[in-house]
């Protein structure tokens, strides 16, 4: 499946007869300005302003109920904004021409269970204006892409939840979209399925397709996204390149047999002690390459060194700091103990954020 995912690198290569898509190739693929949506008295989106460039994998990250789904629905034209503007490919969101060029995976869906996957794909292909020949060649491709080759004739009723989600993904990719909106695409998938989705997303981006990914799963966003906007209660609370968001803060976690004043003053020569928990000292450093020097120093003073773990702040730290209700220290250091478990980056960041 991963091989076939990269085979879609020509996703931008449109077949003759496919609808031509408007929009300048230079401008942003998604652009919203002060987008606001109210449902009665509840405000789902406050002044949402963001831009997504061509070929980007954009992560829209936030807890449940933050307004992510509403934002995507505005971009597909399913929901009308109360105020503000939303443009996709240089045209108003929801415009019929725009919808030709957008693939969408809704968050919660139960597709028509009486249909087979191929029925559903043909139907959606027709709705998308794909001629019969294009559908016949494209449908096996997308089934292969999502790992459902040979299962296209099965009724959706017999599909597992994960397979249904794969069909949703196949539908989103069917009409060779320029922009793919994925709303929580891996919520029903097992780890293998999640990895498959990551590979597909990466392959799409490689082919110049823009991906807008809604997620409350930090690991997912961290693994595939170039750029992230963190949204909470309808507002973007932070956005930027992942590296910029995660920040330069590096730490060494030093596990020793005992901690005393002497040790602390010794290691302070290489950085700032930010936390002491039991016999583990956390040292904020400018560069992680001071590690060997710290190790030599600790051993030379007669301490037993059990571990020396380099840590960079994870997106989870940033996320919890931004939306978790914890007040971040003003100096941008990681939050106080208890706010974050502080795992090594990539190690324990598959946490779900509580809503």
């Amino acid at each position, binding site marked *: 499946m991963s091989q076939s995912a990269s085979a879609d690198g020509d996703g931008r290569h449109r077949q003759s007869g496919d609808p031509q898509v408007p929009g300048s190739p230079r401008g942003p693929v998604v652009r919203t300005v002060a987008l606001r949506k109210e449902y009665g008295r509840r405000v789902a989106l406050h002044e949402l302003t963001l831009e997504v460039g061509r070929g980007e994998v954009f992560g829209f990250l936030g807890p449940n109920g933050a307004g992510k789904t509403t934002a995507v629905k505005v971009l597909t*034209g*399913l929901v009308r904004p109360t105020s503000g503007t939303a443009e996709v490919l240089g045209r108003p969101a929801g415009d019929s*021409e725009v919808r030709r060029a957008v693939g969408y995976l809704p968050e919660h869906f139960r597709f028509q269970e009486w*249909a087979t996957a191929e029925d559903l794909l043909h*139907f*959606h292909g027709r709705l998308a204006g794909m001629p019969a020949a294009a559908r016949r060649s494209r449908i096996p491709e997308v089934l292969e892409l999502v790992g459902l080759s040979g299962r296209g004739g099965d009724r959706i009723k017999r599909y597992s939840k994960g397979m249904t989600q794969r069909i949703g993904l196949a539908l989103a990719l069917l009409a060779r979209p320029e922009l793919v909106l994925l709303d929580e695409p891996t919520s029903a998938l097992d780890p293998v399925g999640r990895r498959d989705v990551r590979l597909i997303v990466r392959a799409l981006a490689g082919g110049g397709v823009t991906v807008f990914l809604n997620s409350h799963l930090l690991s997912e966003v961290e693994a595939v996204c170039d750029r992230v906007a963190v949204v909470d209660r309808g507002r973007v609370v932070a956005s930027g390149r992942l590296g910029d968001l995660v920040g330069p803060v590096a730490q060494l976690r030093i596990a020793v047999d005992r901690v005393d004043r002497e040790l602390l003053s010794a290691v302070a020569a290489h950085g700032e002690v930010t936390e002491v928990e039991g016999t583990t000292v956390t040292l904020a450093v400018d560069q992680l390459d001071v590690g060997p020097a710290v190790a030599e120093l600790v051993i030379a003073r007669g301490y037993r060194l059990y571990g020396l773990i380099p840590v960079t702040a994870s997106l989870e730290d940033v996320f919890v700091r931004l939306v978790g209700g914890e007040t971040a220290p003003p100096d941008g250091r990681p939050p106080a103990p208890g706010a974050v478990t502080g795992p090594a980056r990539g190690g324990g960041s598959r946490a779900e954020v509580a809503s």
Partner: protein
Amino acid sequence: MTGALTVARWTLKEAGRRRLLLAAAIASAAFVALFALAFSFLYGKAKQADDTSGLLTLFAVVSQTVLGLYAVQFLGAFLALFLSVGSISADADSGALHAMLARPIRRSAFLAGRWLGYAGLLTAYIVAMSVALFAVAGIIAGYHPIDPLRTVLLLVLESLLLLSVGMFGSTVLPTLANGVVLFGLFGLAWLAGVVEFIGNVLRNDPMVNLGVGVSLAFPSDALWRGASYFAQSPAFISDTTAGGGGIPFFGTAAPAGPMLAWAIAYPLLFLAAGLLAFRRKDL
């Protein structure tokens, strides 16, 4: 237009796959067979009786035929109700609607396609059933109603009216609430038809006005009365209505022109309202 046809085809495919067509065909065949059996039995009994005037036979034939159509009317109405109440809301609940409407299809085309698919099913069902019933009565008893074509047209119109109102409701109400409202209106119109009939018998104007008022508000029963009028024979009608009476569930006169015009405009208005409501709806 192609979008609407795609959706209509999909709607028919769904009816086939969910065995709606099969179930309807089996139930209809059983219904027609039972009707034929009962009809021939009763017709034979009436012929054997001492019926020099032929009135008893006439009564047996006409009342059997119209009662059979009455049942078809209810079946068609319920089919229209079941098909329409969740026609939009059920797909909205499952999220399938979101995926479909994110495609470059106009919402009006989607709604029109759904309507066309259901309307085709209902029309086929009602035409097949009523033609079968008229054929049974014609073959066994040589029965000639006033105008069987108008009967069928009015029955179809009634089911399309229910379909259109139900689809409008489905764009603004959850499935269950829509079903409750629609079923209530249908029952109310039926009751009002009976009230109007009794009002006429008793020459009670308020009762008649109440019945007419409800018929204007929801003309399903008025259409049935029109359809049933054309399914009777002139002799039967003049006979049963001679003393100012009649059969409370059968029409005794051709539908008035204005009422007919209203009953044609009515589903169109609801369809238009449904299109407007659906176009503006946040999904």
